[in-house]
């Protein structure tokens, strides 16, 4: 932590710009003005994210010390390759969702509240990015709360009155999770006297045998697992994603769980990076069990859903299972699989939620019964949904295939044959829940046959993301290399 390291101001701008945009949205008040500002900020953030990723690929890490104070005293922002990759995910999804949100939100939220929606989106974006760039455990808690509180509000803005109870349930569960996290941080601070991740990492080997650290690890893991919606702590998620406004579902489904997964990675592999965590605690069997339970039980639940948004929500829980499974393998290949799946799933689930949001916008339909023949009525929108759906199955030429390839390879590398078989088996469940929608959308006759496409401002962002799905499924060399390097650095130290 020598002062010689260059401070990179872009790191702080990444967080501060959307943070300041939030009150400005409130001041502007007019829906169009708030939207224009939010969109501009989202694209600006995306540009910064790309710049940062290029810089990190080039030079290793980016660091920013707030107020110029060095690490143990001041708060340090530190962005490694993994962080830069997650920042890119969040920023990219933000950049496509914001233009999409305009027309979608106009129909779903009362006009006099629209500026609040954009303010909350900005806070949420800032919170998620802050979590990713900060190198300080307490500062992370602050951003965790910013993103959580704003997402409770965003979910409660949903049209359906059940959005309120969904948001409230999320509030309770999220608060418990955050409390667990802060208790864990407190215990670690008590043992080490530092909140800086790098500092924690250095001191950890000296205190690893204490019961306090064991308790801290337990509190941290459970707290983050709640935010991550890791089975069996996922109960808040289905309703939250189902009843939230479409743009919110798309944004949160693609980013929120990824950022939580990132925090879990930080704790397991950075804070506890110098100790052999998986030997000290029976972490592997616990994580694998929960991951597999998520993959199967959530996929089975998805098969029985009538509401397509809820089906996608259960699918998200199952996909979190894949990500955690990658962690649990604790090998470079496994981590690579987890990291690439964070990116791939964000693209696919974002596309799926945006497509179904466009259907809701145009027809109000969201249950399978209402979607009969929708493929003929909204060919462009459903085309994007088909791309995303095939991705969720893991068909070749979609990113899902790449993730599956990497995860199964990782399992085979460790001679974990049953695990490889289970991954493949669970992806067959995805065939079932995705194909139900395809059958209804394309093989039933619509009751009304008029064409009703969503407005271009929704269709275009959806298809941009769908094309990204196709691109990163066809040419995964870049993403896999980034994920692999990030995994290497994570395994080998910061």
């Amino acid at each position, binding site marked *: 932590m020598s002062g010689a390291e260059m401070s990179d101001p872009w790191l702080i701008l990444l967080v501060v710009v959307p943070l300041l945009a939030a009150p400005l949205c409130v001041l502007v008040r007019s829906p169009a003005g708030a939207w224009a500002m939010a969109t501009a900020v989202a694209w600006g953030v995306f540009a910064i994210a790309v710049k940062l990723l290029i810089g990190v690929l080039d030079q290793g890490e980016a660091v920013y010390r707030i107020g110029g104070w060095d690490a143990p005293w001041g708060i340090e922002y530190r962005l490694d390759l993994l962080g830069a990759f997650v920042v890119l995910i969040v920023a990219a999804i933000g950049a496509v969702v914001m233009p999409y949100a305009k027309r979608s939100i106009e129909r779903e939220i009362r006009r006099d509240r629209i500026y609040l929606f954009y303010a909350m989106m900005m806070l949420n974006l800032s919170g998620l990015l802050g979590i990713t760039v900060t190198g300080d455990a307490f500062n992370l808690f602050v951003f965790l709360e910013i993103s959580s509180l704003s997402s409770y509000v965003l979910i409660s803005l949903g049209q359906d009155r059940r959005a309120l109870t969904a948001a409230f349930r999320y509030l309770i569960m999220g608060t418990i999770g955050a409390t667990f996290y802060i208790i864990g941080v407190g215990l670690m601070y008590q043992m080490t006297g530092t909140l800086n991740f790098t500092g924690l990492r250095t001191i950890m080997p000296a205190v690893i045998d204490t019961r306090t650290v064991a308790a801290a690890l337990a509190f941290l893991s459970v707290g983050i697992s709640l935010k991550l919606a890791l089975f069996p702590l996922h109960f808040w998620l289905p309703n939250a994603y189902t009843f939230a406004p479409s743009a919110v579902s798309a944004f949160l489904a693609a980013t929120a769980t990824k950022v939580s997964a990132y925090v879990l990675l930080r704790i397991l592999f950075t804070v506890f990076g110098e100790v052999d965590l998986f030997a000290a605690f029976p972490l592997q069997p616990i994580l694998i069990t929960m991951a597999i339970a998520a993959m199967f039980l959530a996929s089975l639940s998805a098969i029985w859903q009538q509401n397509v948004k809820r089906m996608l929500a259960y699918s998200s829980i199952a996909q979190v299972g894949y990500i955690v499974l990658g962690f649990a393998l604790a090998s470079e290949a496994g981590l690579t699989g987890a990291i690439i799946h964070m990116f791939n799933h964000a693209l696919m689930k974002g596309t799926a939620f945006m497509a179904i949001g466009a259907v809701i916008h145009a027809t109000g339909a969201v249950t399978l019964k209402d979607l009969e023949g929708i493929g003929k009525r909204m060919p462009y929108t459903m085309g994007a949904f088909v791309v995303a759906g095939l991705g969720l199955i893991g068909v070749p030429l979609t990113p899902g295939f790449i993730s599956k390839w990497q995860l199964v390879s990782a399992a085979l590398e460790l001679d974990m044959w049953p695990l490889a078989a289970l991954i493949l088996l669970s992806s067959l469940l995805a065939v079932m829940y995705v194909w139900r929608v395809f059958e209804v959308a394309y*093989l039933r006759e619509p009751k009304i046959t008029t064409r009703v496409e969503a407005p271009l401002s929704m269709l275009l962002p959806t298809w941009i993301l769908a094309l990204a799905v196709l691109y990163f499924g066809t040419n995964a*060399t870049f993403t896999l*290399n980034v994920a692999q390097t990030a995994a290497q650095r994570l395994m080998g130290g910061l």
Partner: protein
Amino acid sequence: MLFNFISEAQTIQLAVILPLIGGVAVMWLGERNRNLREIASLLTAGLEFVLVASLTPEVLAGAQPSVDMFEMLPGLAMTLTVEPLGQLFALIASGLWIVNTVYSIGYMRKNNETNQTRFYVCFTIAISAAVGIAYAGNVLTLFVFYEVLTISTYPLVTHAGTPAAVQGGRVYMGVLMSTSIGFLFLAMLWTYNLTGTLDFTDGGILAGKVEGPELAVLMFLYMFGIGKAALMPTHRWLPAAMVAPTPVSALLHAVAVVKAGVFSVVKVIVYIFGIDLLTVADGDNWLLYVAGFTIISASIIALRQDNLKRRLAYSTVSQLSYVILATAILAPISIAGAVLHIAAHAFGKITLFFAAGSIYTAAHKTEVSQLDGIGKRMPFTMAAFGIGALSMIGLPPTVGFISKWYILSGALDAGNGFAILVIIASTLLNAGYFLPIVYAAFFKDQKARDPSDPNHKYDRHGEAPVAMVVALSFTALGTLVLFFYPDVPLALGRALVGG
């Protein structure tokens, strides 16, 4: 090389991409310009065949031109390599596509099918995937196009949109997807894990890397993972696919899709396992028996089917296992026979399906028991049917005789009594379920349908539309011509086993 202005590498890539370009044209022209749309289909098919055929001389001369399309995973590219077996498959698929397009136009128009544009577009994607499979230079490329073929044919299978079609589509997707994801994908990654490569290599890549029971398990994963080869019990998707319009059954479920299956089987055995490894290691003994069992039991089931298309489907299941059996014998001459049989069965079975489709179109008959005397009303169709049937049984002067001859001599050379027995028994069974149809068609009298049957008004039918008759006469003729001139497929088959 055919054209001076495109390189060989471009020709290979274009062979995969061209049908997709045609598909875009077809979609753009749409139902409003249906004549232009049909011309676009035909033009694409014709050009595709020219492209594919232009590569033949070089392959026969022993070259194996190869091109990397793009790097999909680090160190693993989508590679196209033209080798003898793939060249033959590509020739068959693209050549019969032309004939099938002519036939489709007649069939789809006469039967007033809906969503014709979607139909033709999906067809172009399927052909592109079939050629991609043919030219796949490694298992990854093969797998990618294999899955594209499955998905692009799903809308064709469920074309009618009826509950029966939806049900058939579920079985189709269910079996093909679960075998490929569950087994083939695992086999591919296992191979990659063992050898660090997935390239199809002369002599195989697994020698010295895997042995004993593991070899047998890997073989099991490959053979049942390639569900399109319809080895029992993964054959259920094929009869289910018969709900599709007949042109689909004809080109895809008698030629492109199923041949992609057995083609992959041959390719994996020859280029991944390697004949030498299997000759020493006995990893595929069980395959011989499973293939033999499939041949016999599918024939017995076919014997009991009254629905003509289902009978043909089970006959396909049985004929596909001929190719697998011939490959599993591991004698070079029987493998050459297997390759020839891919071509022989393609021409014979597409003729039979074309005939079934024109019977349906002209007479609205679908059951074998309704076909008494139909030969008098549809002489061309039923004559072609007879030729196709002879080829299935393996009688001269049809190409089926030659391929069976090669397979049988391979079995004799290897002293494989089981294979010989299976071939003889199945020949009798084939005769048992095909000859009565031909006999009834020409020598029995037509039974009029009950007036309450809404289809009875079609009783005084004639031949099917001319486009269909031309197509089926052409393929029937092909079956005969290949008997006299089997040179190209045989040369390609011999080149495969280096003989």
